[in-house]
């Protein structure tokens, strides 16, 4: 332990000694109750000036509630919030914002049809009389963008920006409020690798300026780039706060789940066969991808790797008939098929699980049962189209039990379930349809560690039953841990198909960035 503190001291300029910088925000024994739920149970948390502090925990651990107490959305029932040395109670998030605490939510709060400058100064426009002082607004916005070293014009419409750029605009907006504490909820969940790097540079820049950052993310491996300290929560309780340098990722995960995770991926039980289930040849969608060719074998898990926007999702959607193609052919076994719509694809036993469950996967205002049977209603209805509710309930119960979907009943609205359970519903839909080929598009995004493992296990079992599984993923460890082969995409083309066992993350990264030749399999 001694030499660790030396290393720690080395991280600060010598004249400061090992003294930690002063704390800007402190939560002491904060408790928050909701009807029937103890969301926060005497949680303490401290944030130093100029540090990036990660908040870790599984879904439902109380991270969001704590975040909302910090930013004034909720008031603590018990305990104390001390900001800049003074105990304070923010009545609402506007109070907190005015005091210098800003929050950037996972879903961005920008107005797509307004410009960058208009968004940054929305509702706080600099005025000249009753008119907006557009020149000043532009100049101020430009200054903020320069400070973040962003090459975005203040006149650009927000809807034309990428996800990452929109995030940067949110940060610029926060900075325009003289923010001293910036809370970020899953900021990288929809960013590509290089965009994430850009974001980290900005966060590091903010730290140097003395801004403190509270950072929430499920991607633990990225913490090392920015994080100084980490606080782990579990079941609404504080578990520990550590210097990031002194704690291993495995220890963080173990603290999060309250058990040792000796394996992040299940033992693969399925053995890929040589029988080809699906052959895609020279599929083209002009301006999006192509020509793309690949094969999927019975019982294998084929990974689709590559940067976001490289065409992975688009190819899967095209094979599924969700988007049109101009040329190319698809064979199922030895039979060439013509897939014009999802209806055709489903009839041929192809399934596609969207990366965006809420937008494309689930009818969130319908019951669990209705979602489960939507792909195969004929199986629970008589020949006149009347639904047999007893049969539907039996089917629902079967899948709820088989996949361990945690729901009070099959009548529950899908939107009331957690992300992991929603994903299981979507998977069940396609199992009920007896699919032969399943595309999983980012199946574990936004899902906590325990639920991830269950999804991996399920994919393995499906492959073991002879189903061809395609897993689209941006997370390389997941690709390395779960797939038999990997097709790597780069700007609309497959730059290589490699055997997972014979490859490295580095080689895949090279193929994904279009900079290297991989050994073809």
């Amino acid at each position: 332990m001694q030499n660790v503190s030396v290393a720690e001291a080395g991280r600060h300029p010598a004249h400061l000694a090992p003294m930690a910088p002063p704390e800007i925000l402190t939560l002491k024994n904060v408790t928050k109750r909701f009807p029937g739920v103890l969301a926060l149970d005497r949680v303490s948390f401290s944030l130093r000036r100029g540090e990036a502090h990660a908040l870790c925990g599984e879904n439902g651990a109380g991270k969001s509630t704590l975040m909302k107490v910090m930013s004034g959305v909720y008031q603590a029932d018990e305990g104390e919030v001390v900001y800049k040395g003074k105990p304070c109670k923010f009545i609402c998030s506007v109070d907190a914002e005015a005091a210098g605490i800003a929050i950037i939510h996972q879903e961005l709060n920008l107005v797509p049809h307004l410009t960058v400058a208009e968004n940054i100064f929305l509702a706080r426009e600099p005025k000249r009389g009753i008119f907006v002082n557009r020149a000043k607004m532009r100049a101020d916005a430009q200054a903020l963008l320069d400070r973040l070293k962003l090459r975005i014009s203040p006149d650009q419409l927000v809807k034309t920006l990428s996800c990452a750029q929109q995030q940067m605009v949110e940060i610029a907006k926060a900075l325009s409020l003289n923010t001293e504490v910036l809370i970020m909820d899953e900021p990288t969940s929809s960013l590509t690798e290089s965009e994430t790097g850009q974001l980290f540079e900005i966060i590091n820049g903010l730290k140097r300026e003395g801004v403190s950052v509270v950072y929430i993310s499920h991607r633990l491996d990225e913490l090392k780039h920015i994080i100084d300290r980490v606080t782990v929560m579990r079941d609404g309780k504080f578990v520990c706060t550590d210097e990031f340098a002194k704690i291993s990722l495995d220890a963080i995960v173990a603290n999060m789940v309250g058990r040792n995770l000796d394996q992040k991926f299940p033992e693969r039980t399925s053995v890929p066969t040589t029988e080809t289930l699906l052959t895609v040849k020279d599929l083209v969608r002009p301006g999006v991808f192509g020509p793309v060719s690949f094969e999927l074998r019975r019982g294998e898990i084929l990974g689709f790797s590559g940067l976001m926007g490289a065409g992975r999702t688009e190819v899967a959607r095209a094979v599924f008939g969700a988007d049109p193609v101009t040329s190319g052919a698809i064979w199922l076994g030895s039979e060439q098929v013509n897939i014009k719509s999802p209806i055709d694809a489903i009839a041929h036993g192809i399934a596609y699980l969207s990366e965006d469950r809420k937008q494309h996967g689930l009818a969130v205002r319908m019951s669990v049962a209705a979602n489960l049977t939507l792909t195969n209603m004929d199986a629970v209805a008589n020949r006149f189209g009347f639904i047999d509710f007893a049969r539907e309930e039996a089917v629902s119960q079967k899948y709820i039990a088989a996949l361990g979907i945690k729901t009070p009943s099959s009548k529950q609205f899908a939107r009331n379930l957690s992300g992991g359970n929603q994903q299981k519903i979507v998977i069940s839909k396609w199992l009920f349809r007896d699919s032969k080929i399943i595309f999983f598009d980012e199946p574990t995004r936004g899902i906590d560690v325990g639920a991830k493992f269950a999804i991996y296990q399920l994919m393995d079992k499906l492959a073991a039953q002879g189903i061809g599984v395609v897993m689209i993923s941006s997370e390389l460890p997941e690709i390395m841990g779960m797939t038999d082969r990997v097709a790597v995409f780069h700007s609309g083309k497959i730059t290589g198909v490699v055997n997972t066992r014979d490859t490295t993350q580095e080689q895949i990264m090279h193929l994904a960035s279009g900079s290297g030749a991989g050994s073809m399999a």
Partner: protein
Amino acid sequence: MSKVMDITTDNQPVAAPAPVRKPRLRLNRDMIQKFAALGSLSILLLVFSLTSNAFFTVSNGMSVALQVTSIGILGIAATCVIITGGIDLSSGSVLALSGVVAALLVKAGMPVAPAMLGGVVTGSMCGAINGFCVTRLRLPPFIATLGMMLIARGVALQATGARAISGLGESFGELGNGVLWRIEVDKGGTFPEVIFPGIPYPVVLMCVLAVIVSVMLSRTTFGRHIYAVGSNVEAARLSGVNVRRVTMMVYVISGALSGLTGCVLMSRLVTAQPNEGVMYELDAIASAVIGGTSLIGGIGSISGTVIGSFVIGILRNGLNMNGVSSFIQQIIIGLVILMTVWIDQKRNRS
């Protein structure tokens, strides 16, 4: 299907049990919405019974029911469309056009029954055009049906020279004026004594349609698909729901029911009025909304809509009986709509 059972989650490291969110009061809230409509209906009944002697009688009950039929049937149609996330602004005009077509066919020498069928077919075709504009031309439903609202009304006025068509014969009035189970006792007077005035055919028709459409929505795969399209159109498409066909069908249903309402209404007057049914589409939408149908789509029921149409009908009738001017009536109905939608919004927000 045995395959499913293999997919157990054994040897999974026991995750901290993901907190299952409780159903909270959601179910109850849905009930509250329905009971709120039903409750306000009861209060209306009570108040009007106390303020007017003639209100709570069998014959007034029947006349209210008769007055409600138009809004009721159009409301049933509107509910189907709104559940898919669409809207049909053309039903009032389509009603007029269909009635006029039926009357013109009779004038041309066709028997009443096929002529009225022709009216319904006309309505269906208008609905099909709406559906085509929405699914193929990808026009927003509001615009597509706004166009049809103007076109159908214009055609009806043009075809008749804006004059009512009368002299359609007694049999044309049968559908709108006939009753079922009228009980009379001949006591030797000039007129037989009426014990039960009978149930008007339009009321019977509305009840039958309500039951059929309600069963369709709640118990058939087609109904489930209607909800799925309204709840999440992309998820429905990717689940293999034929979104175009479902959308097309609800507009055709809406058109057909509008056409039927037109025939019933013109039959009641035994005159075809090209100016009939102006703004009826708004009453229909209002009755659906009062009954808890969400304009965002995905939520709604026929029972709610029927209650909603009776709320409007009884308000009108009761206020009439109490001598409240039609101007004040409009104000009150407007307030009722604002209040119920406000309740609906509150329900959806939480």
